[in-house]
């Protein structure tokens, strides 16, 4: 009896490993094939916040493509959920054990990851933060990210022109209190629009955690508070999508201008259909490919990247505003992330 149970367990385990072997063959073919090519055995690690968010999936694809091109081996990992610091710490340790030259990471918890990043650097590994800076920022060697203040400013300037001649009633659907990305985009929007915090034209401010369902709830509540809202700033596209749903349900989607930040393919699609007026597009693919290149340069020449590199942001809109630089939807579509 016991031997049968044990053999069943072992057979199952063997099956599980076979499954993985098959799966890995398919998934890591982009980076993996290059790694096995014996190209000086440079290994790069990429750690994202989660495996599921299209933004990070795109980042991973960018890193895989660049790794294949450069002939370096790419290891990838992610936290179990957004905010999973312990999971990212484990991934860093495993990557150090795997002998990586450099680690690219989007910190899930910028403060909590800092001590671990410093430990990695003490072991001679170059650490590059992508998208989100660690806190303090100098716990990574370099940061490749969107300028979130600029991203907010662009849609603020655009909204200003679009609202000319009308009295703006603004709702801002923000991220979470105290998170830099959200604060910077929010402040950028206000600066671009030319108003200060507390301006009477701001009718409603609500937090959404960048989540569609919460964005919808927030918009519904804002409409209760101020039914005549005609301009909605959103922290990201999911929040914008939620806002659109709430406005549509209230029959106000045609009368309200929604501006947002992200530039995903889904978002640009929504923009083409007229759901959003303008979208500041960011480039996660570029963050990842620049990151892989920087680690390769470090491995070959010993030169470490440093400081902040702006990976750029473009204003995407189907209805350009006079005096504000923008790209059309087809540009947005061909440079969008996700699918």
């Amino acid at each position, binding site marked *: 009896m016991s031997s049968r*149970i044990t053999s069943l367990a072992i057979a*199952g385990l063997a099956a599980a490993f076979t499954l993985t072997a098959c799966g890995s063959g398919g998934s890591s073919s982009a980076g993996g094939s290059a790694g096995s090519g014996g190209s000086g055995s440079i290994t790069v690690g990429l750690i994202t916040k989660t495996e599921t968010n299209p933004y990070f999936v795109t980042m991973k694809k960018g890193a895989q493509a660049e790794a294949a091109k450069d002939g370096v081996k790419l290891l*990838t990992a992610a936290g179990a959920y957004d905010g999973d*610091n312990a999971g990212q710490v484990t991934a860093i340790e495993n990557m150090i054990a795997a002998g990586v030259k450099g680690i690219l990471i989007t910190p899930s918890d910028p403060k909590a990851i800092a001590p671990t990043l410093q430990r990695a650097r003490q072991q001679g590994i170059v650490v590059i933060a992508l998208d989100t800076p660690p806190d303090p920022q100098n716990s990574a060697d370099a940061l490749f990210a969107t300028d979130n203040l600029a991203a907010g400013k662009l849609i603020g300037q655009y909204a200003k022109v679009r609202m000319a001649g009308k009295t703006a009633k603004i709702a801002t659907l923000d991220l979470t209190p105290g998170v830099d990305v959200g604060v910077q985009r929010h402040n950028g929007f206000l600066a671009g629009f030319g108003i200060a915090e507390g301006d009477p034209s701001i009718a409603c401010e609500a937090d959404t955690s960048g989540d569609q369902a919460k964005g919808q709830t927030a918009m519904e509540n804002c409409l209760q508070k101020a039914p005549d809202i005609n301009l909605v700033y959103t922290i990201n596209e999911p929040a914008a999508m939620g806002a659109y749903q709430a406005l549509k349900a209230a029959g106000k989607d045609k009368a309200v201008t929604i501006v947002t930040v992200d530039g995903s393919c889904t978002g640009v699609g929504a923009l083409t259909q007229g759901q959003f007026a303008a979208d500041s597009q960011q480039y996660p693919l570029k963050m990842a490919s620049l990151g892989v290149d920087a680690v390769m340069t470090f491995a070959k020449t010993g030169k470490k990247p440093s400081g902040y590199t702006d990976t750029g942001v473009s204003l995407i809109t189907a209805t350009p505003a006079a005096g504000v630089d923008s790209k059309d939807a087809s540009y947005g579509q061909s440079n969008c992330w996700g699918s």
Partner: protein
Amino acid sequence: MNSVDSVKAPGAVDTTTAERAAASPPEAAPSRISALLRVPTLGPLGALLLACVYFSFASGRFLTGGNMSLILQQVMVVGTLAVGQSAIILTAGIDLSNGAVMAFGSVVMTKLAVAGGLPVWLAIAAGIGVCALFGAVNGSLVTLAKLPPFIVTLGTLNIAMALTHITSKEQTVTGLPTVLMKLGDTFPLGQTRVTYGSVLMLVLFAVAWYVLRHTAAGRHLYAVGDNPDAVRLAGVDVRRQLITVYTIAGALYGVAALLLVARTGVGDPQAGQTENLDSITAVVLGGISLFGGRGSIVGALYGALLVGVIRNGLQLTGVDSVYQILITGILVILAVAVDQLARRRRK
């Protein structure tokens, strides 16, 4: 919870004196019982060794002292939680709150040490204390209010999570005194550097194994999980037994909180969101029956290590981390299937 089922399965693997006396006439000879005693950990140990052999061939970096030490270090938090979780599951209970309680404990101890200016040992004691208190609340609600453990700990999970966010004001606690991270330091063992925290986890497993296997209290715990009514009739105070188990488990979560702080170097209010299921996974992979009363706590160590080995090994061999989750899922189902098969065959 499952007294009916248990009565029908008199030859339970971890049959103890109290249980045999209480449950039914022993049909199995002592020699057969002692042979079966070793079974529950055999599967997990085999799987663990198999995984190690596989990864040793797959990556030249796997089978090194440093990497083995690293895996232990990565497993120490979930492993310590699993000690408490095992004890509770052996009583036919379950604890969904342990990750959240641990996060609360870690925020309490770091906050008190940094912002509260308390001596470090007092901050640590307070952190472990609040975790033990949570355990006591869980145990009391399960026994005195007669609520199902699943519901009770689902409730305390949310309470602990909310208290964590309220206490920390959503801010990660940094700038910790180095003493608080002492368990994350290493000492040399031959060529390898071993983390103090890993050793502490192994010691906790050893102590728990001894208590469960060789003391009357430990044997009563198995019996409570197998057939609480019979145990009560046999004169054991089941309520007190259960409250004690939950409270000790809570204190162990406090120790896990200390290990988490030592490992990450911060007090992190967002921590502990998956550790409840991670610890249950370790327990189930270890061959401990979710229906209570059966299994060895050493199995939970193997289960925790198995998850750690797979995660580390796949990373070293460059396999995408989602496959680690896939394999763990398959193994959990397999482990439960094996448990069920073992039960059915005994009837």
